[in-house]
């Protein structure tokens, strides 16, 4: 399905606003992860502003799609997206990681009840999404209109629990399940292929009976198209390997694993925000 160019333009603008919020949040928090959230901003935008069945004014709507964020450390992009989508105010984003804040360092349902799960320890999200998809199938059979999404990192595929979930989903042919892997090739200690090689990633998932799609994780047409295709696959769960650039949108942060687990300082944030607000120098920022 083609997505109109005006829609894509709007999504690009929204993603840029979300990236701006991510930088603003992180510099205030003084700790947190930068590369992953920036890299996943386009996918979060595509989901929450285009594809997902959800209602920010009725977050517990039974028929909503479910989104499990497995790699909880990229929660700045989740929080920023939810705020921009209308789940809570943009002002609240400034409380990230502060005492008493609903925006915990890693997402916690106790604080933010409309999260589908709490996460942080890696490798556990896919299995939870599998459990949701199984429960959905018990309730609705194969005619369910709900889709269960699991957003996960490539680094957490080092964890055995991830593959336990993948095996079960393949065995159970959970067509209502779509996993999206942030294939940004970095983890805290370095590049994934140096730390613990994951390739051939496609072959691994295919071996567990998954339908595999590979996309440019910054191309909205590809993101939306892949989700449409995944939904059309009836016999298997689908995994979208989304090739992304860690730190995407801020040239100084891009592709550097050093930005996995640290926030920008004030000066770095200023430069980053300037780059984002001027779309890389293409326009003049109203903040200047």
């Amino acid at each position, binding site marked *: 399905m083609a997505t109109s160019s005006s829609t894509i333009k709007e999504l690009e603008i929204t993603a840029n606003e979300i990236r701006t919020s991510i930088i603003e949040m992180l510099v205030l928090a003084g700790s947190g992860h930068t590369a992953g959230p920036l890299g996943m901003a386009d996918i979060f935008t595509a989901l929450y502003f285009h594809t997902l069945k959800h209602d920010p004014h009725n977050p517990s709507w039974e028929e909503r799609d479910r989104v499990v964020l497995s790699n909880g450390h990229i929660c700045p992009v989740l929080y920023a997206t939810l705020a921009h989508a209308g789940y809570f105010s943009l002002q609240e984003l400034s409380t990230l990681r502060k005492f008493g804040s609903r925006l915990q360092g890693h997402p916690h349902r*106790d604080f933010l009840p409309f999260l589908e799960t*709490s996460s942080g320890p890696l490798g556990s999200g896919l299995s939870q999404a599998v459990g949701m998809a199984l*429960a959905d199938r018990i309730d609705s059979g194969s005619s369910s209109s709900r889709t269960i999404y699991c957003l996960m990192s490539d680094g957490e595929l080092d964890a055995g629990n991830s593959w336990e979930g993948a095996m079960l989903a393949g065995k159970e042919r959970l067509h209502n399940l779509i996993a999206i892997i942030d294939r940004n090739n970095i983890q805290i200690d370095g590049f994934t292929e140096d730390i613990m090689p994951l390739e051939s990633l496609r072959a691994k998932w295919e071996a567990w009976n998954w339908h595999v799609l590979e996309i440019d994780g910054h191309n909205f047409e590809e993101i939306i198209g892949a989700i449409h295709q995944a939904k059309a696959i009836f016999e298997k769960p689908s995994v979208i390997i989304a090739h992304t650039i860690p730190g995407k949108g801020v040239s100084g942060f891009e592709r550097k694993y050093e930005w996995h687990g640290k926030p920008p300082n004030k000066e770095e944030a200023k430069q980053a925000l300037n780059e984002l607000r001027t779309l890389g120098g293409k326009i003049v920022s109203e903040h200047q």
Partner: protein
Amino acid sequence: MNCGPWAGKLSANINEMLNPDLKLNPKIFDKDVEQIPIRQGYGEGLLLAGEKDSRVVALCADLTESTKTNLFAEKFPKRFIEIGVAEQNLATVASGMAAMGKIPFIASYAMFSPGRNWEQIRTTICYNNQNVKIAGSHAGISVGPDGGTHQAIEDIAITRVIPRLTVLSPCDAIEARKATLAAAAFVGPVYIRLAREKTPVMTTEKTPFQIGKAQVFFEPKENAQVGIVGTGALLHNALLAAQELEQKGIAVKVLNLSTIKPIDEDRLVLLAQETGALVTVEEHQIAGGVGSAVAEALAHLYPVPIEFIGVHDRFGQSGLPAELLKHYNMDVESIQSAVKKVLKRKR
């Protein structure tokens, strides 16, 4: 474990010391007391829970018959998920199902669940506050010949330390069935400790069961000099020890602590006040188990001397249950010695 020399030559008045309100098994002290594995009670309870509530689902990690989950799986195949040998997946898939409104019961050996998947239970079930019930079978040293790898004697410690997790340790198959049904009706995560071997049936269908309530099983006519707090099948050894001691002129009261968390503080304080000295009895490491839980409660509410029956910082090994209980000083004789020891410490 009930076939010591004392069995079978009982006077009727010993049975009169059983708490009449609890309608306990009148054959409790008999040599031929019926023996059923505690895990059987779980399987039966799970089936009943499944019949009562369609939200109940069961998951198992390749131990369906061994954990008696097969009773449920045969009746409700669409609500049963075979996970394979993957206990981390067992816990996390259950968390996801609970998030959709199901009441998942997950079963494996306690050594693997909550042993291997502790962090998943902690984060995806308890931190997430999901309504998952965790059954850990083959707990304790009396797993026997399988040896130390399969004898979970740390599970109470690692479960009771997790916020929100209720910890149940039924003493026999009938109580296990009631505990399973109570867990299904209770909203929140629950751990149920189960054992492999056939063990004496101490309760009856009529014995009341309530999460959070400890029960006095054995109460001498005269004032009790020592209180025993026991949990699981080993409670039977505690009762036999109390009976022997009674004949030796030492009056002992025996409490069944089937809910380890939340612990019944009121009942423990009462027992401490009545007796002034306690012995705790469990098939578990001394560190972090029932003895520790009792000591934690009483240290600030009503401190009394306590002796601890359990495993003292060692691993298990192969052997017959009775051989192992003797070797690790959890047999009737060891419990009697502990009672005498704590009696001397009383002021």
